[in-house]
């Protein structure tokens, strides 16, 4: 497990370094994620080595958002006088985006015959 954690941290660290050096508008962890996909492609056995640890982390992904969520409660006042407008905008736009994104995927998949399996 320690080796797998070290691999995750190393990819994240490399992602941060590359992001800074090349001024890529992506956060270090996202670059690190793409790098690790590259490593899995190069050495498929590495994916099996990483599996137990990544499954442990991803199985509890929700937990990791709790501290930031608690921070939001304290900053809810930053929504200010426009709180209701902003909340309506967040709720409606998120629902619309999910519906449009999923709908377009299904429509284009049908048109191009990109069925699953």
């Amino acid at each position, binding site marked *: 497990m320690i080796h797998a954690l070290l691999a995750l941290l190393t990819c994240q660290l490399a992602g941060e370094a590359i992001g800074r050096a090349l001024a890529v508008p992506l956060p270090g962890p996202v670059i690190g994620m793409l790098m690790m996909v590259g490593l899995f492609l190069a050495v498929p056995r590495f994916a099996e080595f990483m599996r137990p640890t*990544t499954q442990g982390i991803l199985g509890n992904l929700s*937990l990791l958002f709790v501290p930031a*969520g608690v921070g939001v409660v304290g900053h809810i006042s930053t929504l200010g006088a426009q709180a209701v407008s902003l909340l309506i*905008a967040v709720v409606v736009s*998120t629902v619309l985006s*999910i519906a449009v994104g999923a709908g377009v995927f299904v429509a284009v998949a049908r048109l191009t015959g990109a069925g699953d399996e």
Partner: protein
Amino acid sequence: MSELAAFWSYLSEGPLLWLALTLAAYVVGDACFRWSGRKPWVNSVLIAVAILAAILWGTGTPYGTYFEGAQFVHFLLGPATVALSLPLFDNLNRLRRATLPVVAALIAGSATATGSAVAIAWALGAGPTQLASIAPKSATAPVAIGIAERVGGAPTLTAVLVILTGIVGAVAATPLLDALGIRDWRARGLAVGIASHGIGTARAFQVNTTAGAFAGLGMALNAIATAFVAPLVLWLFL
């Protein structure tokens, strides 16, 4: 000072108590989710946040003190993002076969997320700073905050809107997509990841691993897309 009060002041200053309470609140939230029969509106993050906010408020504890303990959990967000590489790798073949639908859904979903949020907030009378703050709200937090700073938004406001967006997406996705009759796990996951980043992705993993993998991909792709879409939409409205 009584012994109990002394013990409290000792514990509440260190990270141990707040780290333990963060995990405990999540365990309670997760148990509620399971007891409810895994109903999407019983969101474990929301329950844990409510419990912890009530404790902080009840004990008069500042967020900074709480975060001393909670930072250990918060820190894992980075390694967890890297860990999303494994489900992505597992689904690489079905992803290759679905390149066109993925690209189309990304453009449509990202434009809708940013465009409709800015349009609605604008119509309801929000000012330019608020419009710039809400524009990147569907991107993952560090990207959204970076974009908000570039386009004249307020980073703290963006952080709040990003988290709210994630929770809305996590709660709304399952009933919404069921109502629309969309059963393709690839479409469901990708759309949720695009619209509501990591919190939506965490929810997608609770439902189905294919949906989770496509949600992780949607989150990563929309981090890139929002960097282009948000300034474009704001240019239309400002």
